[in-house]
């Protein structure tokens, strides 16, 4: 794969179809096991719209197919969403402390100011 | 003769010790023992060791390094850091100041007080703030300890500063022979002259000696040229009464020469950490710092006799009177 193509797939994950959840339903559904509740997942520093990077998996990994593929080498981490289903991910590690307060500052690993995540703390 | 003398600190941005922005040079060694002393580390004429309890990790490295068995065994750091703790790291009477413990300490908890500096080393540091002196009428203040305890060195320091065109204040307690003080004061711009108590008995009670020599020198100094600024510490229940200050004002008024101004310096206890770092108990530790507004009233005793007087001695009060450079 050329340099351009390689990064294109990362960009598409960031800006492409994934970024466009449709309607209220897709935006509200948060699976019981999801990236947002995983220790390996860091919320993106540029935006709090739910996008983040995996600290284990690299771009090219796919959790949604029947046979999930795990890519561990590469220049860019896997970009996924807080509400992406991670039930089939073997690297899922549940986070112990989900901070939904939002008044403390920028900890991309722990900041969970999203309204949808709040309900898991109650 | 060793070149240089012991300096505890060269403090920049000093604004209370003479006009304008100044750099204070604190020389180590003082013949007096004022009980309220705010700079206890400047009293002894030799190097000393600070032990800063809050920085100490109680790792024991100093204990291992000490050849004289002059270090106490570690205790739990929280225990040692407690306000009321009496634990001290160094057993001072066994310590011969070999400083091996200071070298061993990784935490900066043990620190040497007193660095031997030459005239030029001091003046190079002082000159760093020259742009500030130029805009404020500031310069160097030689302080201590007691500068006159280092007569030859101070004369050289003053000569060096003169040749570099620096404005010089000398902060002295006046407790020395006139043949020492005389040559020193003749080429400084301002003498900050300490007056600790007018009554010799009371003086001796808190300072250790009577005040005859000090008052005698004050009269002599008045004829020599530099401006004289009287600096009077105000200590609770000792030198804080209205009547006392009326008498001081009268005394100063009757002197055969002009006193430029009087700075009243209210007692504070912010220096208590320094006593504890030296392993000394300080009886005045629990005496509360004075509210400067009380001292404001005493200032009036001097103003009534036409003196310029301040609380705390800002270098910028005087600047106002002069209308700027």
């Amino acid at each position, binding site marked *: 794969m050329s340099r351009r193509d390689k990064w294109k797939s990362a960009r598409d994950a960031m800006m492409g179809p994934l970024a466009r959840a449709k*309607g209220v339903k897709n935006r509200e559904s948060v699976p019981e096991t999801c990236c947002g509740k995983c220790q390996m997942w*860091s919320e993106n*520093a540029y935006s*709090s719209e739910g996008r983040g990077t995996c600290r284990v998996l690299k771009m090219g990994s796919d959790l949604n197919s029947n046979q999930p593929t795990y890519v561990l080498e590469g220049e860019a981490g896997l970009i996924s969403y807080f509400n992406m289903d991670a039930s089939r991910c073997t690297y899922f590690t549940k986070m112990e402390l989900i901070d939904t307060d939002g008044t403390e500052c*920028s900890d991309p690993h722990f900041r969970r100011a999203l309204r949808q995540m709040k309900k898991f703390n109650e | 003769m060793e070149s240089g003398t012991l300096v505890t600190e060269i403090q920049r941005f000093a604004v209370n010790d003479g006009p304008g*922005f100044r750099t204070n040079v604190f020389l180590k060694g003082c013949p007096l023992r004022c009980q309220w002393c705010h700079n206890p580390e400047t009293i002894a004429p030799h190097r000393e060791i600070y032990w800063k309890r809050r920085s100490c990790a109680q790792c024991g490295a100093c204990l291992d390094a000490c050849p004289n068995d002059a270090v106490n065994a570690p205790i739990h750091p929280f225990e040692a850091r407690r306000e009321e703790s009496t634990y001290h790291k160094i057993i001072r009477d066994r310590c011969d100041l070999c400083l091996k413990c200071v070298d061993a300490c990784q935490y900066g908890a043990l620190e040497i007080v007193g660095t031997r500096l030459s005239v030029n080393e001091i003046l190079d540091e002082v000159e760093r703030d020259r742009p500030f002196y130029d805009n404020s009428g500031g310069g160097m203040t030689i302080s201590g300890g007691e500068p006159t305890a280092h007569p030859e060195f101070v004369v050289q320091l003053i000569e060096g500063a003169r040749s570099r065109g620096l404005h010089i204040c000398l902060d002295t307690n006046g407790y020395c022979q006139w043949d020492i003080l005389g040559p020193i004061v003749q080429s400084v711009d301002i003498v900050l002259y300490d007056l600790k108590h007018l009554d010799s008995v009371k003086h001796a009670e808190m300072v250790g000696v009577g005040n005859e020599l000090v008052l005698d020198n004050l009269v002599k100094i008045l004829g020599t040229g530099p401006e004289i600024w009287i600096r009077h510490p105000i200590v609770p229940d000792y030198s804080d009464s209205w009547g006392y200050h009326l008498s001081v004002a009268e005394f100063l008024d009757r002197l055969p020469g002009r006193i430029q101004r009087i700075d009243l310096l209210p007692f504070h206890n912010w220096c208590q950490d320094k006593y504890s770092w030296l392993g000394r108990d300080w009886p005045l530790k629990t005496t509360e710092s004075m509210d400067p507004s009380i001292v404001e009233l005493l200032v009036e005793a001097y103003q009534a006799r036409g003196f310029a007087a301040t609380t705390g001695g*800002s270098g910028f009060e005087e600047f*106002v009177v002069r209308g700027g450079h």
Partner: protein
Amino acid sequence: MGQRTAQTEKALSVDELANRREWWSVAQKTRSKRLDYLRKGVWKKGAIGGNYAPGIKIDLTLPQLFTEKWQEQEGEPIMLQKAHAIAHVLDNIPIFITDRSQIMGYIGSAPHQIVWHWQGISMVNEEIYNEEGIIPEPEEESLEILATLNDYWGGRTAVDKLARILDPEDAVKFMSGAIGWGTPTSAATYSTKDFTYIFKGFEALLAEIEERMEETEQKLQGNPSPQLLPLYDKLPRWEAMQIVLEASIRYAKRYARLARTLAEHFESDPTRKEELLRIAETCERVPAKPPRNLQESLQFDHFVQVLARYETFEGAWPHRPDYVHGPYYDKDVNQEKRLTKEEALDLVGEHLIRTYEVGIFAPKWAREGLQGITGTWVWTMGGVKPDGSDACNDMTIAYMQAARLVRVSNPTFGFRWHPKVKDEVLRECFECIRHGLGYPSMRNDPVLVANTVHWYGHPVEEARTWVHQACMSPCPTTKYGCQPMRMASATANCAKMIEYALHDGYDPVVNMQMGPKTGDPRQFKDFEEFFGAWVKQMEWLRNILVRTVNLGRVKDPEFFGRPFLSAIYERAVETGTDACDPSNGERGNAWVTGFTWVENADSLAAIKKFVYDEKKYTMDQLMEALNANWVGYEEMRLDFVKNAPKWGNDDDYVDDLMVRCLREVSRHAKENKCPSNNNWPLLPENVSGNIHYANLVGALPNGRRLGDALYDGGISPGPGLDKKGPTAVLKSCGKFDHVTDGRAFLLNQRLSPTQLSGEKGYQLWKAYMKTWADLGLDHVQFNMVDDATLRAAQKDPEKYQEVIVRVAGYSAHFVDISRKTQDNIIQRTVQGLG
């Protein structure tokens, strides 16, 4: 302090309160009833910690109105399509008049609402959807509306469009958020404005546009040639400008009608009735026609600022209101005596309050970086006229006095200090600082004028018109000097330069190979090799940001479109271009904001001294400690903190490295160019980006860990690490050239309130400032609150609502900022103690 009852508080005189330095109470007692009412009634729009205050809601009316018209006009040239949509909003958005208010205009449909710009970046749209607390009730219905809006705008926003044409590697790295922030579009930016042009009145501008159009249409009837072809695109742009200017006049007249209706049918108080009629008259007059008096000039100004925000997210508020309004104040108060000083002060005070009131939604990263406020609204005061003579006037003084009465944290002031400033004006600045406002910051005018000429070649008369484009950067306000779009995203997280030099360009926080592979430092043979790696990382980091922003800039007219701003930009009106089109004659005034800069010098000094000069540690040992985030290496960490030289102590070892780094950057700043082919100098400052980036920058050799706040100023030493006092800090900062070594350099200092009390305090400060100027520094700002007050405010925030601190580039209420920032501020060394 908090123990007293309300009654004893009342009994205290203003003098007593001043002695206690209870400045908020002093202000309450000394301001007029009107100002008191307006100040207390205003909604706080800045976030508290990271969240908006309860009751603050996002405005959905605005995007709905806009989008319905926008969809209707689909297929038109973007500027025209947008002009129709904005006009539709201005004709239909609910308006309101606050009781006792004299200055009209608000962005949004109700005073508790904040707006955003859905057309900028779809990620922000989604963030709003996810945000708790700001969705208007009933929530379900609002979420449905938002989802529909977001579904439509997803992929259609300016940044979405930009991301499709950027190099994909650049796009991903930029949007990781690790190396910089901002949005490379004028959807979130700021513009300087030329009021000498704008105050001709919108009718005059319309006439000018009409003339241009007629002239152009005639040309288009002539002989065909390639020269005619670009003209076809100009006509719809001019038409768009006309549409928004006309809609703006109608918007003002809606206020006039409302005020008149209230006066004639509802108001029983004769004084207020008279005021309402004056408001009606004012809004009839401006912005259509030139202002004739102070109320009209302030109203015109505020309409322009509000209208600009109907078009875009103006994150800053570049302005020089004393210069703009001074002549009207002089006419009303001094010459015609139409107004008393007190009446004028009411208007000026309300001008500050109405500005403070403006609320714009900021995404989380911006709220962290700009804690407690809506934007970096730094107004410029003082300075010189184009001929170099003193520009301070009575209005300068009035703004300083009003600021002490209303005590808002936003706008703040930056004062253009120069040797000819009169003592009475300087005293007013000092009073504001002494009252703990944290502003004005002091700017060295001669240095900054020279700097502006040096970097961009602005003629000196033009350079002298400068205003703060954001917190720090001077920008002229002339026909060719005005900057329509601050290059908002060229904001570099500079600590990454040293971090990447240590990690061969890899970023463990975002799990990405970011910078170039400059080698494993364990293999480097000497410091020079290490420094070479740093230089390469620095160049890479600047390059990627500048590339992104340059592209965002030239594509802005195509991707976003600014009909309103174009209509008030002389060169855009003249040429029929979008104001943001860099080809219409602007000289360029780009800069890279350098967040977290000083860590580089301190880290390089520690490496040079301990690894290469003294060989106390090997690079292996250092890397091991850094990879462990210093955990388990605490002794070593403290050694690096305490025994390596630190910037700000007048120590040449590290200061020389700082100068060397700045010179490398300045060399590079002339190698990468903006779309107007001008330079990109560095401007070290932090706002509160030092907190935002705390968890994005890994362990560094200066002794910080991942998670620790970075240093808090652009060029300020690390908090607590300046051991030699304020004069040594100034001396360190004076070692580089503030004209040629960068664009501007933010310096925070905390001075002791007791030291600066009374006349002697003023004299001390004045002598200090004189030396600051002699040393050639371009900036300094002061905090004047003592630790005890700040600690008490942490403990009982409700009792200390009004304590203001300066947070690196702007001021904020202390209780509105996060704990980490609060601690960071308390830790900032107090300089000197009386």
